[in-house]
């Protein structure tokens, strides 16, 4: 009984921040197995515009079915932006028009040309684990 109570107390105490889930991101269309994926997670349009990610990861690309797990994202809406840094200059290379010349992708794989807004790429996180696929081609 005592144990039970403790567990309940713990649950109660942690509940406000415990509604969170892991987001597993699968990357499709990785044609070059080299370089690193720079992954940034944004909780809003404002943070996206000011490049203030709530979570970020750098993942080396070794295999076709490359994945990344973004752990414990609190419930809410998020957008993920990712690029593959092939030449390891820690930056997304672009051409004269500002068009990326390295692979890139967004959550929700929006059918757009040009940079997305938050609404184009957002997805929801609640208590269940989330599986996403981002097309890098």
């Amino acid at each position, binding site marked *: 009984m005592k144990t039970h109570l403790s567990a309940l107390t713990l649950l109660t105490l942690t509940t406000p921040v415990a509604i969170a889930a892991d987001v597993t991101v699968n990357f499709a269309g990785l044609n070059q197995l080299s370089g690193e994926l720079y992954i940034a997670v944004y909780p809003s349009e404002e943070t996206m515009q000011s490049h203030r990610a709530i979570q970020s990861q750098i993942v080396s690309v070794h295999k076709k079915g490359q994945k990344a797990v973004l752990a414990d994202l609190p419930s809410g809406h998020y957008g993920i932006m990712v690029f593959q840094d092939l030449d390891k200059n820690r930056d997304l290379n672009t051409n004269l028009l500002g068009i990326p*010349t390295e692979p*890139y992708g967004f959550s929700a794989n929006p059918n757009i040309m040009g940079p997305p807004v938050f609404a184009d790429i957002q997805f929801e996180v609640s208590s269940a684990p989330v599986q996403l696929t981002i097309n890098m081609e």
Partner: protein
Amino acid sequence: MNRRDFVKALGLAGCGALAPSFSLKALAEPPLSFYQEFNLKIKDYPILRAWEGLTADIVPRRFTWQGKLPEALNGKTFYRNGPARVVLANQRYTHWFDGDGFVHRYAFDPKGLTHSGKFVRTKKFIEETNANRFLYNGAGSVIANSKHSKSAEAVNTANISLLPVNNELWALWEAAMPYKVDPITLATERQVSLEPVLDGMPFSAHPHADSQGHLWNFGDLSFFGQSKLIIYQLTSQGKLTRYAMVDAPQSYVHDFAVTDNYLIFYFPPITKRRGDTLISSMTWHGNNEGEMLVIDKNTLTPVLRTPFDAGFVFHFGNAWQEDNHLTINACWYKNADIMLKDVKMVTEEKMGKHDRSTAAQIRIDLTQKTAYLDNSTTPMEFVQFDSRFAAKATQIQYGVHASKHAAHGEYNSIASINTQSGKVDSYNFGDNFITEEPLFVPDGSKQGEGYLVNTGLDFVSGHTYCCVFDALHIADGPVAQVKLDSYMPLGFHGAIV
């Protein structure tokens, strides 16, 4: 009798309400796919063989000349590029321009030629081969459940032309980067990156060498929503010298002309907006004017932008400057139907009945800042000239041509036209033929002394011919020709090395 005729015959065309009570099975059948329609129609309309396409690379085979190959052509290699993979997994592109690029190679020797051909292994070709279906909308074809293309590079078919440079062969499209193919094996090697910051930028299919030995090209940035062109200057070895962006109307530009001092562009009255395909994004405005743009080669800045007739041009011939006057040869269409409507309707009633372009000259007065069109009635497309006289005043232009009573709407002849006298020297292959771009190979020293090499398709017998003409005596017919063992899809542009 097709379904439409059947319905008409029953008098039902205007009585839609009656149709359900008849429960006509024919009315319930799903419409034929374009793939099915094409397969049915090609039996009755062999002209469709010109767009039937290819499904595999072609291994080298030997053929013997009929006639005698002129010495000037001994050891030459003739290449031609064009759209060829037009069917994948029972889906057929609806627009001629969409097929994946296929490079033909005709290696000449005194006894005969060796023909071979390979698809350019673009990213698109490889991705769609692996998926065993077309994934992306084409320039004019809509693909069901198509994949979003993030950039023009994803749909680069490398299917328009070839640039031989520095012992290399570049296969060109017009809205993305070139692909380098091996000049002998035709194996695709890699994309050509002029400079990292230019990766993914458009490089048109019509680079031109000027009389000083520089190569010039442009990219139409309206493909990317910008009112600009990018101008490239390269060495004769294909190394980038410089580039600049120049303000320009958003329209559609396929080719340009080069004089000693200027680069000359024509913008038809076409606007672009977002659409499923490039073609569906373009609108023709026949009541508006077109525009000429003249750019100074030294400063890469515009010296003239002036309104011009509404019309359409794919290809320009030789251009030159005399005093402050420019003369530019062009193949002039009175509207853009050829691009926006006609070439996608090859199985419809209008099949092959589109307007042909005519040999025209555009004259620009740089002092008065005026330009006018001097058009002719001589059908001409895929215009070529004696490149030894590039940017010099010349009289002779070559191209595909149509005889007066040609039975189909394509080009059945090749010709030279003397733009001063209007005299046409032509050879009519016959109404079973469609002719392709004739390339000029100089011999001797005077303008026009040399040979024309072209291919022509006999769509009835089902053979493509490779022909050599004396360029001063075209009407005499080929001095040498080879009949291939099969027919090849109509191509676009070639090169002779």
